[in-house]
């Protein structure tokens, strides 16, 4: 009897703890197609609209890739080195005394990195590959960068500091991968060696092939959960 009492107390405690945790985390989770993340306060309020926005709205129409150059070369996009900002801004006298630019040069003079806050922070068990998506949409399908980046990052050229505007949850990823994205690369996945889950498309054999089929996106958990 003593034993069961002990276990039930423990179980009740655990359940209470889990419920509290679950209730709290539920509040912050947004699962809609377009859901704005929290406003993140950055050390410098970087105006994306000024840099990348349309000329008609006072923007410079700078290509995303000019600063976020790592995105097309690596799985992670990284943050542009401070040197990049200074490279242009040391020659732009007109805004040299603006408070944000002064702050920027303070960091530069101290040779210190700007402690930006992550706006699109996936959980540690998710690997999203930037390079692969840019290769597919920009290099193979010739779509403009702003559109392609915008699939996940929203309309950044209208923002000052970036704010998350997509859910970036697994269901949200699947919502895009459900559409028919036939990969034209050679190879494909051997039937039987793939794992698919959720609403990711089940690979189907194509005409005229016996065991090789064209993938429609990740059909292996390992692609994202390494």
């Amino acid at each position, binding site marked *: 009897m003593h034993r069961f009492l002990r276990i039930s107390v423990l179980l009740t405690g655990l359940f209470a703890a889990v419920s509290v945790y679950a209730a709290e985390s539920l509040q912050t989770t947004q699962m809609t197609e377009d859901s704005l993340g929290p406003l993140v306060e950055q050390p410098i309020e970087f105006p994306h609209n000024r840099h990348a926005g349309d000329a008609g709205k006072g923007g410079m129409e700078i290509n995303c890739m000019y600063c976020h150059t*790592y995105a097309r*070369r690596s799985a992670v996009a990284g943050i542009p080195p401070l*040197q990049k900002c200074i490279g242009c801004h040391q020659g732009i006298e007109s805004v040299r005394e603006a408070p944000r630019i002064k702050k920027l040069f303070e960091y530069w003079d101290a040779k210190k990195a700007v402690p930006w806050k992550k706006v699109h922070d996936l959980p540690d068990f998710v690997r999203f590959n930037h390079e692969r998506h840019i290769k597919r949409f920009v290099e193979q399908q010739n779509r403009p960068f702003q559109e392609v980046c915008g699939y996940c990052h929203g309309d950044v050229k209208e923002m000052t500091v970036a704010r998350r505007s997509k859910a970036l949850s697994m269901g949200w990823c699947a919502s895009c991968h459900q559409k028919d994205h036939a990969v034209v690369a050679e190879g494909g996945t051997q039937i039987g060696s793939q794992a698919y889950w959720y609403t990711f498309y089940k690979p189907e054999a194509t005409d005229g092939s016996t065991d090789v089929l064209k993938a429609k996106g990740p059909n292996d958990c390992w692609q994202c959960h390494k």
Partner: protein
Amino acid sequence: MMDSGFDRRDFLKVMGWSGAAVALSGCGNTSIEDGKETVVSYVEAADFVIPGIGVYYNSSCAQCDAGCSINGKVREGRVLKLEGNPASGINNGKMCGLGQAGVQHHYNPDRVREPLLRNGNQGEAISWEKAYALIAEKLDGVSGEEIAFLSGGVSGHLKVLLGNYLSSFGCKNHFVYEALSPGVVRAANKKAYGVEMPRYNINKAKVVLSFGADFLGAWVSPVHFSQQYAQFRNGADGQRGVLIQVEPKMTLTGANADRWVPIRPGTEGILALGIINALGTATGDIAAAVKNYDKVRVSKETGVPPGQIDKIAAILKLRSPSLVLAGGAAEGYAHGSQNAAAINLLNHVLGNVGKTIVAPVTVPFPQMAPAKGNTAALKSLNDGLAAGNFKVLFNYAANPVYTAPGAMKFKDNMAKAEFKVAFTHYLDETALQADLVLPLDSALEDWGTQVPEYMTEGAQINILQPLMENLHPNTRGMGEILLALIKQRRPEEYKNYEDYYAYLRAALVQNKNAFGGHSMDDDTFWNETLTKGIIKLAGTTTALNGGTNVSSLKLPTPAEQDEQFPLQLIPSVNISLRDGRNSNQPWLQESPDPLTTIVWDSWMEIHPKKAAELGIVEGDIVEVTSRVGSIKTQAYLFPGIHPDAISIPIGQGHEAMGRYAKGYGVNPFKIIDTVFDRETGELAMHETRVKVSKTGQRVIIVKDESAAGAKQVREKIAGRVSTDNVDLSKEV
């Protein structure tokens, strides 16, 4: 175990339910944490630096003295993984587990981070300027003879700089001490072949007869020998090489051998002479020297059956060239030199010299050649300290308070020096006795050059370069420190070198012609050198010119049974922990010993027969007592050991050094008798006799092999034939 009445099943039930509860409540939620983590960019980034993509640098491994070259993956300014550099003739792109753990040395949480000055029992953090000034102050008015510098093996430009620093105040007391050096074998080789370390062609031998040389595990250059061994096993002409290992305690090499021959400890030389006798091909002096070593006598003294001796002799006769090696188990006796000489003689008789034992190549800069050392050096330092001859003691890359035999009382003698400086990575046993502790860069942060003792076909100088910026801002490289110190003495001579990097660059660039850089300008040569991580050069070959002088060869008959201390203690060398310098790397602690699979602890290997005699079962805590002292550890029944011997691995039992080293296992150095080899003065590591007694306690040994408490000999995996009944020629 637990007396709460809460048993394992209930515990698992609760865990199961709570796991399910978490899974249910967590379903469908993602944990995107916007705006919480900081993402730091580079201030200035080189073009080739892309976040998420590794950059690779070549450098050199400093985990042991073999001198393997490494290639480190660096991402976002952090070194992540080390592999071998394929350009190196020593490791050819391969790497051992010990080397892999180099990152754990680098990222170790117990590294010293600030210069520390003794204040009572505390170390007080001081600035480097103050530390340098203090050294200058303490050296002021002290004569060169009163200063001693103790170091482990050093080579390359560090050795040159150290020599110059010591000579700047007329100090000749540079003691080089390697706790596990093959000192006796070096001396015997010098006599037999004319060089201390010839080049062994294991891959060209058809039979390797190794007297306790654990060349696959921890002997001289194991990564290189392992590759040679693979070729040896494939066979040069399709004939698979045969490995016979003679040793009282099975090593990793012994476990790989075709024939493992347990021998009475210390009688290796007698067996070698017995084999020469059985071969019957020797003439003249040699024949005369071995004529009394007939099978019956040799068998009686060594415990090796006569048939076994015949078989070894037969296969050596049948297949040529062969290679005979003398290793740690043969040299660790008062007559170790004689043992090694007898074994080397066997190579002469078999005609292996010049075939499988060939002239080594050396770097044509003798000042950079490795300074080798042994316990004899430690002994003379210890004597000097005891006599109060030294006022200032420097210590670098050695930990004598831990590795010196307990009977030497090094710790007490060290206290007699007025000012003791330790250059160190960890607060190890020796650093704790110092007055000033200076923290060193890890090998992955430092600049330097290495000249390996054991060279392969071509000579090479290894380059050490930082794979990443300093992890801790206040550590310094040894070269950097020595340069700062020598600038105190000879400012004019060294004023052009801003730092050790500048010194090293200048030193290498000015000799670029010798390093194959005659067609390059300085910058190109330097960049090429750093890119490759190795300087390959022609080198000079020292011809073998040793003799077969047998007049001084005198092997003592084995001692009579000692009633009080009936067993021989074999302090064995663990392939990961070596002399204990790597014990604070948890990967190495966690790597099971290859033969016993025990982790995170010491143990005493004892033969099952002997254990039954003494009533010992696995896990019994036993007290091992020598004339000097006693230690307590767990017993492990191991058929791979001579019944007259027990074995305790070296490397554990630290009293300091760090969280992963301190308090695990016992240190057999503490009970080693101070017996020395008669010729070289090297510590006779295997000469200690002990007795074993049960304490009454028993534990479950933590090991990988089978269920706790099960015996290794429990199951027969393959059919076995006793060693006497095996026809060796049919085995291979």
